[in-house]
């Protein structure tokens, strides 16, 4: 830490950073902060939970997509590849709109669905948001997992077969762990990207961190203050994610060069 600050220019930069923060704290208007504190914290939770939930569900889907492309028969590999191409070729915002407004409009005009017990769930925005984020991340990670599955040395699987390990056990104990291990650095980066795409949820009325700050901006008519705080919180979240994945990677034993 002190080594980092040894060069003179870094000390000057540190002073500039401190002065900037002081100026922002002193000259900008932060009176609204106590009033919105509760909402901001709940917004942060929604952002974090949406990231984690979509990442976990998306990885389950991505594992199947990757496996279908790496080892599946052509009638499974082809649809999986098409799915990944479509997801990666269209903006997430459009996918979100298509699911929420398109599917939502379709559902609300179908009486059978309107009268079913699922309607209260299908009426709310969060399920659509989670679905869109999950489907999107699955499309990107599907490609990653395809490469990771193919990257596991074939001898490992042959050894398992020679030992008489059942196919599913070999997948669960040998193929999947090694593929995940290989994909881990990429998954870490993609989790940060996923967190960075959660603000789009606010476009379909979900009150995540970005949505809350949008309300603050509307209520207080301030331009920069809420946005600067927003950027700061996202930066901290991204930093924490990077640290978490670095810790995770260090905990796993590696023998690769």
């Amino acid at each position, binding site marked *: 830490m002190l080594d980092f600050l040894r060069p003179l220019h*870094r000390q000057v930069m540190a002073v500039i950073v401190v002065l900037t923060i002081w100026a922002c704290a002193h000259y900008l208007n932060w009176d609204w902060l106590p009033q919105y504190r509760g909402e901001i914290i709940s917004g942060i939770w929604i952002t974090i939970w949406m990231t984690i939930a979509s990442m976990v569900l998306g990885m389950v889907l991505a594992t199947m997509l990757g496996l279908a492309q790496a080892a599946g028969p052509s009638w499974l590999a082809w649809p999986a590849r098409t799915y990944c191409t479509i997801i990666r070729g269209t*903006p997430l915002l*459009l996918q979100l709109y298509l699911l929420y407004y398109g*599917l939502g409009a379709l559902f609300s005009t179908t009486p059978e669905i309107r009268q079913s017990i699922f309607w209260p769930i299908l009426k709310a925005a969060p399920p659509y948001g989670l679905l869109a984020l999950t489907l999107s991340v699955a499309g990107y990670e599907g490609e990653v997992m395809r490469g990771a599955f193919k990257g596991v040395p074939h001898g490992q699987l042959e050894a398992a077969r020679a030992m008489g390990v059942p196919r599913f056990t070999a997948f669960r104990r040998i193929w999947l762990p090694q593929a995940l291990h290989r994909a881990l650095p990429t998954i870490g980066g993609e989790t940060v990207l996923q967190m960075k795409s959660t*603000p789009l949820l606010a476009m379909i009325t979900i009150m995540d961190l970005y949505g809350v700050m949008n309300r603050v901006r509307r209520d207080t008519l301030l331009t*920069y203050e809420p946005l600067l705080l927003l950027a700061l919180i996202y930066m901290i979240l991204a930093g924490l994610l990077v640290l978490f994945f670095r810790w995770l990677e260090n905990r796993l034993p590696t023998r690769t060069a």
Partner: protein
Amino acid sequence: MLTPVVLSGAVSSFDLLAWSSPGWGATLVAGLWNTCLIAFGAYALGLLIGVAGAFGKLYGGPVTRDCLGVYTTLVRAVPELVLLLIMNFAVRDLINQAMLAMGYGRVELSGVAIGIIILGVVQGAYSTEVLRGAILSVPAGQIEAARAMGMSPTLLARRITLPLMAAAAVPGLANLWLTVTKDTALLSVLGFIELTKATSLAAQTTKAFFTFYLAAGVLYLALSLVSVVIFGRIERWARKGQRTMEGGAH
């Protein structure tokens, strides 16, 4: 151009996508044109920043290097939407203050120009990293040889480093192009009329959400598929004269 359509009962999906009223085909294509324009401009600006940033990060002094480090880290840690929103205000404010300081009146830049600037600054951070990696892939001996021959730094960059790094940079740059075409959709949130915004306008007016968002999805997909083919050609061209090896760059 954006004339609202009076709905007379049920209009079929195909009628809605027709070129002129009651169809919205022309509106969607105009939106697609703006999307391409902004994406292309922002990509070009991003590349300019990226080349300067990559050389600065590798060969610049300690201050340049640290400043570029702050730029790329900041941009990559904050969601694009938030960055675009902040810069949308900041760029307009800065330009107007500069104009007032120089004694001119306020100016209102077009949406496309602002979109290109703010998206280009974001792209620049990612381009810097891609190009920096590509420059590092150039064998050191080549650069040393050029220096030994007495080439000036600009000539060296133009004749040796840039051509040699092109092949390694193309896959990353292709990814960036696909990202920027999709990132233009974020500008719809700021009110710029591009494909997503045009689609939303059409969908909200006609209430045919599914039809229009699906149609826009097809247009985006077509754009990305065409881009993939073009970048494949560019990569083959950039690798001309290179010995073929197993496994490409990622």
